[in-house]
């Protein structure tokens, strides 16, 4: 297996824990990831397992009018739609049509749009444990926003995303269309034995993307990871 580059912006500190007389150690790796938000919309993930993975906790201290939009699919709405909250310093909380917005979670493997209302870059810092072990990300049929649970950069192929004929990866580029943002779309084709449309871009640690699972039924993106590999 090709060694992938594990990218974190701080040194990891490992806490070893002896689990039994058999001297088997589990190592928890903790650290932080700084994610840069360009002015406008950014499609990002929470790459670490925080003590509190709610939107309200993860995005504490953001500027006034910062918006977070999560793409939600339910039985009643299987196509999916965005639920958006706007942080208001006047209210001192998130304002949304969903009263429970601040308690919605963002865990590794998911993603959200974050709108930076300013004209300069904004940095959001995620702190927590690196996900390890067997990591499974649900891939429902149709559109969903997903991200690599393993905090590595690479193309969707490099990161082990399982694809079938006509599945699509839509990677958001906040600088496209004069800063309004736009997608680079890649469609997997068994006829081409590869990707049509835009070449697969490199996904950064902390970056999410839209995946369109065109084949019937749900799938799972599974990877096994340890910081020791």
């Amino acid at each position, binding site marked *: 297996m090709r060694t992938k580059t594990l990218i974190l912006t701080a040194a990891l500190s490992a806490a070893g824990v002896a689990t039994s007389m058999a001297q088997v150690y589990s190592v928890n790796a903790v650290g932080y990831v700084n994610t840069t938000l360009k002015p406008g*919309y950014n499609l990002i993930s929470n790459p670490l397992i925080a003590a509190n993975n709610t939107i309200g906790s993860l995005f504490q201290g953001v500027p006034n009018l910062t918006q977070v*939009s999560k793409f939600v699919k339910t039985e*009643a*709405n*299987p*196509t*999916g*739609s*965005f639920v*958006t909250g706007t942080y208001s310093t006047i209210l001192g909380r998130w304002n949304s049509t969903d009263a429970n917005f601040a308690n919605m979670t963002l865990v590794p493997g998911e993603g959200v*749009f974050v709108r930076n209302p300013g004209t300069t870059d904004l940095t959001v810092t995620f702190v927590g444990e690196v996900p390890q072990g067997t990591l499974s990300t649900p891939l429902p049929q149709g*559109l969903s926003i997903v991200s690599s649970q393993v905090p590595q950069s690479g193309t969707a192929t490099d990161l082990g995303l399982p694809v079938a004929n*006509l599945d*699509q990866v*839509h990677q958001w580029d906040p600088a496209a269309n004069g800063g*309004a943002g*736009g*997608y680079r*779309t890649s*469609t997997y*084709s068994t*006829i*081409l034995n590869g990707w*049509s*449309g835009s070449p697969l871009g490199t996904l950064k640690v902390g970056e999410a993307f*839209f995946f*369109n699972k*065109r084949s019937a039924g749900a799938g799972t993106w599974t990877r096994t990871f340890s910081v020791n590999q």
Partner: protein
Amino acid sequence: MKKALIALAATLVALSASAQGLVLFDTLAVDFQVRGPGNVAPGSGITAQLFQVGAGGALTPLTPATTFLGTDVPEAARVYTVPVEVAVPGVAPGVAANLVFRAYEGSSFETASVKGETAPFSVILGGGLLPAANLDALTGQSLTLVPEPSTIALGVLGAAALLFRRRK
């Protein structure tokens, strides 16, 4: 489903009021195959273009147009278009637009000697924060381009004239 689409449309409009609806003009993504006369891939001289159906059935060309995949891909793939993203003016993301697919030889569909088109079909547009919409209504269908009747007539006349001269 309709309520979900309306809610989605409202969200998208609120998020980006100035965004146009977008279509991913990629026939490979929906397995919509186009062939020329003789059941062969269209080739480099054929243009593919989407048109918006307006009031009274008037067709407005959308840009960019595109061409078909060439000899750098397997032969089975040359019946599909080179992907481009097409904006539909005046129609917001999450709202349905009626479109027609046309393929033609030469500079315009009207003057083309070889051409073909689909019946109108509906697409709920992407755009805003959603990816461009696929042409799902064309999934699994096919279109064969045919020579224009004037072209056929000239060909028949020419063949008849040649036969007449030989008999003489």
